[in-house]
């Protein structure tokens, strides 16, 4: 139906106006220099692919033909630079923004977009706080840390009813484990022990001994890889064959390096689907590959972020943020990453979280939890 309308609109625009074509500016922000530059470029290229594809369909807004142009800015993964480039985009008339990568950059920049009413769709930031600041303009396409905690908790109960949890008392670790505990209880599991550590500790033998005494089936850790790696080592040293799980803080190559052989069998979660499992994954990999090469991580997300923004403009018949923002909230799109809809906070509804397990010294995807129900 929509495509018929589109074709009709295209025909109309082609016949009616041959005059000046209006150009609408969309910003894309990510670290384009520095150690995360490859990920930032991934985001820029993903968005570019989407914009080019849409421009090729000769879109029109309110009957007038338009073209979309992408303005890429570099936030250097730095909170301060993020606010500077956010202001620049606003001043130069961007109608919507795809970005940023890091939560630490998205959060300070979101205030500037919000003050100017510019919608922002982040392809990568997962901190819960990003969409929970009370701004109407913040959206994201990745499961947040609370959805991740939920997925971890549900999977833990599948492995065994008795779950012990450890967190490192940071905002991330504590937040994640609080969600895990809720999910474990909701799924009929039992939290048999809750222990704490810090993000600077290396000795976990005492807490692991007291956890061992409670005979859990699974231990879930909320924290980063420098703690997770010695923790799993010490668990194995204590003769515990219990499952060990953690969030994206430990689902890293660094964890594999630090934990060595002990890492085998550990389970870590990460937001989103693996590329090969995404509904539009194969096609996207092909199209992206022809133009830009290999997909890092975020390109499908930034592609869909651009699509979601522009389609909201097309549906509203206007690129004015105040006009199309309500439409953006009502998004129902089958994107590359899967069906996209937002909840009232701007978080991806049923954002999927993928669980990976260490097999033969590598992280391998085992299961995706959450995500929208299959059609």
């Amino acid at each position, binding site marked *: 139906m929509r495509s018929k309308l589109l074709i009709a609109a295209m025909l109309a625009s082609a016949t009616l106006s041959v005059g000046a074509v209006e150009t609408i500016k969309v910003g894309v922000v990510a670290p384009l220099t520095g150690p995360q530059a490859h990920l930032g470029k991934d985001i820029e290229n993903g968005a570019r692919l989407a914009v080019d594809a849409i421009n090729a369909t000769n879109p029109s807004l309110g009957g007038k033909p338009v073209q979309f142009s992408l303005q890429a800015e570099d936030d250097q993964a730095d909170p301060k630079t993020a606010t500077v480039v956010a202001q620049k985009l606003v001043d130069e008339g961007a109608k919507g923004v795809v970005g940023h990568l890091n939560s630490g950059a998205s959060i300070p920049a979101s205030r500037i977009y919000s003050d100017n009413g510019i919608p922002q769709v982040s392809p990568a930031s997962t901190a819960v706080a990003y969409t929970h600041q009370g701004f109407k303009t913040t959206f994201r396409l990745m499961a947040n840390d609370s959805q991740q905690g939920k997925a971890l908790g549900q999977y833990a109960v599948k492995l065994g009813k008795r779950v012990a949890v450890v967190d490192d*008392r940071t905002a991330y670790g504590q937040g994640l484990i609080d969600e895990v505990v809720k999910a474990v209880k909701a799924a009929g599991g039992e939290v048999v*022990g*809750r*222990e*704490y*550590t*810090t993000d*600077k*500790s*290396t*000795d976990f*033998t*005492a*807490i692991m*001994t*007291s956890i*061992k*005494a409670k005979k859990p089936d699974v231990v879930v850790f909320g924290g980063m890889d*420098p703690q997770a*790696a*010695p923790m799993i*080592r*010490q668990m*194995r*040293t*204590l*003769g515990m064959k219990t499952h060990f799980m953690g969030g994206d803080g430990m689902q890293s190559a*660094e964890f594999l*390096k*630090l*934990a*060595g*052989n002990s890492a085998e069998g550990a389970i870590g979660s990460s937001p989103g689907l693996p590329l090969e499992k995404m509904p539009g994954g194969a096609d996207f990999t092909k199209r992206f590959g022809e133009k830009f090469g290999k997909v890092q991580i975020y390109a499908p997300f930034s592609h869909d972020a651009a699509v979601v923004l522009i389609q909201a403009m097309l549906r509203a018949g206007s690129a004015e943020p105040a006009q199309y923002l309500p439409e953006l909230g009502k998004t129902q799109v089958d994107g590359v990453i899967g069906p996209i809809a937002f909840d009232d906070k701007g978080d991806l509804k049923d954002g999927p979280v993928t669980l990976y397990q260490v097999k033969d010294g590598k992280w391998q995807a085992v299961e995706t939890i959450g995500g929208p129900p299959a059609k």
Partner: protein
Amino acid sequence: MDVLLQQVLNGLILGSLYAMVALGYTMVYGILELINFAHGEIVMLGAMVAVTVLAVLAALGVPVPLALLSALAAAVAVCVSTGVLVERVAYRPLRNAPRLAPLITAIGVSIVLQNLAMIVWGRQYLSFPPVLDIQIYEVAGATVTNVQILIVAVAAVTMGGLLVLVRRTRLGRAMRATAQNREVAGLMGVDVNRVIAATFAVGSALAAVAGLLIAAYYGIAHYNMGFILGLKAFSAAVLGGIGNIPGALLGGLLLGVIESLGAGYIGDLTGGFLGSHYQDIFAFFILILVLVFRPSGLLGERVPDRA
């Protein structure tokens, strides 16, 4: 499984690591009445050097015992030269200065060493190469590994060696004499500078061994690992009676066991009100108690004019 036994075992292993580091504090204090806050950083250097050398040798396919010994030798060499250099450059010029000056210098040296290590090795964690094949043994319901047994054995041998050195050798006698009275020892023909340098060398060699053991036990090394470790070992030395060598042994072992039991049981005992992340406060809580009620430590003699 016997939880209590396991916790005590955990504590004894942790404690023997603390004891080895505490010895470095206590020896220097015994001789100079200086709290060498840079000692934790020497341990860190030992760990970093040992891990680096071991990684290179393991990659070259050198047999494990030889690689371990070379790593230990390299760590000892680097730690001893750093320890002696620090004494020569940072402490000796201040030997007759007010006591606060060398103390603050020690903190400065600690920061310098930490930052140097950060520049050399970067901010990331180094992992101990998987050269040790970990075997797990069951003992009366508790588990110990070959690495843990190795730690306790090495700690016992080196600390025993230290006692023999201090009590039975000529150098040891000179150390004890210098500790009692530096001026008089000098008048009696003891080369005080040499003895003090030797004390730093011995303490740093122990630190190197401790560094290697700690890296092997936890599997990681990091430029910042010496800080908390140093403070804990210092608390252990004070607990046993700073300046007293058997006191450092006792203090280290006790602190390890107290920490382990504390972290293991605090959550259950307080009904979750205090959690196991309070593990680190036990060391400092005990430090405060000792300073208030028995400033000379468990085995220390009361020396009112030095307190």
